[in-house]
């Protein structure tokens, strides 16, 4: 049990079904203030499904408490307005728009409610990702994989989220870029944002996280502080074993 007094996010008995197929069964997750929590697990374990259900893109049963407010069926607009930001696996950038416009739209929900500090926030994002600043007028669709991921994270940060949910941020990226992304995730900790990180790259995820859940076939199979799981023989065998040596160099 992730023991925190005041969790930013508390997911209780979350179930999602695609028709008759249960994709997620009674998942329980907690993310504390300023914590980095990771969810690792194999392909098809229901990781992306869980994030989609938490933000309200998918219908679900169970309870999602965000900022202490209990949502029985989360609604995307309400969750985003409350400070939840999802960087989806597919990035979902606005390809035919400039980097600057993509970032600006990240602040849309704040702009709508009268908080018009997007110029300031954009400078902060540019500080974190100087590469984006150089190419601010370039169309998002022309960026490389790594730059697209940076833009997706930057766009999410534009909304000044309390909880940042990252779905496979290293997916399809070259090892060097992956390392850069994880460096930035570690750096984000300083800003106080809570992070829920879903990853297949277990080694890198466990290295950066405080607490970890292992999701297998739609349910939480194991959980514990990240450094404990790193030493757990079952985790080592299944997730850190083969090919782990290669990733070992990247995680540090």
């Amino acid at each position, binding site marked *: 049990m992730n023991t925190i007094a005041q969790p930013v996010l508390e997911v209780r008995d979350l179930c999602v079904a695609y028709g008759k197929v249960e994709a997620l069964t009674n998942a329980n997750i907690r993310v504390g203030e300023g914590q980095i929590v990771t969810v690792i697990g194999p392909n098809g374990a229901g990781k992306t499904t869980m994030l989609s259900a938490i933000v309200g*893109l998918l219908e679900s049963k169970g309870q999602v408490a965000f900022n202490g407010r209990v949502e029985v069926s989360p609604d995307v607009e309400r969750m985003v307005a409350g400070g939840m930001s999802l960087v989806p696996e597919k990035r979902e950038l606005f390809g035919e728009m400039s980097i600057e416009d993509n970032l600006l*739209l990240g602040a849309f929900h704040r702009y709508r409610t009268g908080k018009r500090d997007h110029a300031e926030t954009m400078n902060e994002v540019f500080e974190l990702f100087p590469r984006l600043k150089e190419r601010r007028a370039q169309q998002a669709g022309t960026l490389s994989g790594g730059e697209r991921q940076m833009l997706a994270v930057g766009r999410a940060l534009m909304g000044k989220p309390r909880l940042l949910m990252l779905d496979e941020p290293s997916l399809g990226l070259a090892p060097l870029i992956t390392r850069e992304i994880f460096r930035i995730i570690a750096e984000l900790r300083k800003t106080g944002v809570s992070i829920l990180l879903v990853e297949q790259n277990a080694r890198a995820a466990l290295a950066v996280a405080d607490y970890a859940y292992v999701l297998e076939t739609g349910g939480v199979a194991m959980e514990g502080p990240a450094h404990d799981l790193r030493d757990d023989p079952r985790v080592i065998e299944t997730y850190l074993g083969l090919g782990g040596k290669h990733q070992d160099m990247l995680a540090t």
Partner: protein
Amino acid sequence: MDLQIAILLGQDGITTGAIYALLALALVLVFAVTRVIFIPQGEFVAFGALTLASLQGGNTPATLWLLLGCGVAVAAVDGLAAVRRGDARRLVSILGWNLAYPLALAALFYASQPGAMPMLLQILVALAIVVPLGPMIYRLAFQPIAEAPVLILLIVSVALHVTLVGLGLLFFGAEGTRTPAFSDAQFELGSIMISGQQLWVVGTSALLIAVLYLFFGRTIYGKALRATAINRNGARLMGFSPVFAGKLTFLLAAFIGALSGVLIAPVTTIYYDTGFLIGLKGFVAAIIGGLASYPLAAAGALTVGLLESFSSFWASAYKEVIVFTLIIPVLLWQSLTSHHIDEEE
């Protein structure tokens, strides 16, 4: 044909082309954001023109009752949902826009004589009646099936068109009307005579296109609409609700349609079903733009306008055939050159 006639035909073509351009932009916008091929776009043209004509005849336009009816329906559906969720602020806004607003308009007719108002005010009243029908129709017809495939949306769109044309006949009768021109001014430019109304049509269209360009290029709401058109899920994750995007789009489409109707009513006689043909020609222009490109759609609209005007001189019986045949080479060209656009999953 001498030069004089060619110039006259050209002027005519540009005037109607400007209207087609507006409608083409509305069609492209609606399709890009909501994936609805908006067949009833033309009905907003007819409703705008006929509502204005009815006002000028000193009558209460029947579209006002349609607005009241749609308002009651939307208020009932959305109001109940808000009550169930216990969202009082939302309930107030729903009742305000869908009940109080149409009632206030009705009260205006009860209290004053719209027939005696100055024309500009009459135009504003006509727009105030017809334009809110756009988002209401989106709420009632398209919002519940927003995720449906394009074909289903098209079928609903056709059904809506038939319904609105029927209502148009019921409301305004089978006779056509023509409203007085905004101005009787005539300008001489060398040997060319330009009427004030033509300038109004072309000028207003150009202005509206410029305003739309700025809206989509400079404002965050315009950019959010474009973002929705590019990536619906992405826009949703930014907190831009697809329901709001749909309503905003239909509001713009209704405004463009009704304004086109008001502009063209002094130039041509409008019947309850005229809108369909005008809308279809806008659609041809939109197809030329591939239902995606605004500048190409506008250029296509001018082509359609000019082609129509010149073919009405040479082969007036075939002018519609000629205009709609234009679509075949364009589609052929597009199917050969452009990549196939798969429907979003």
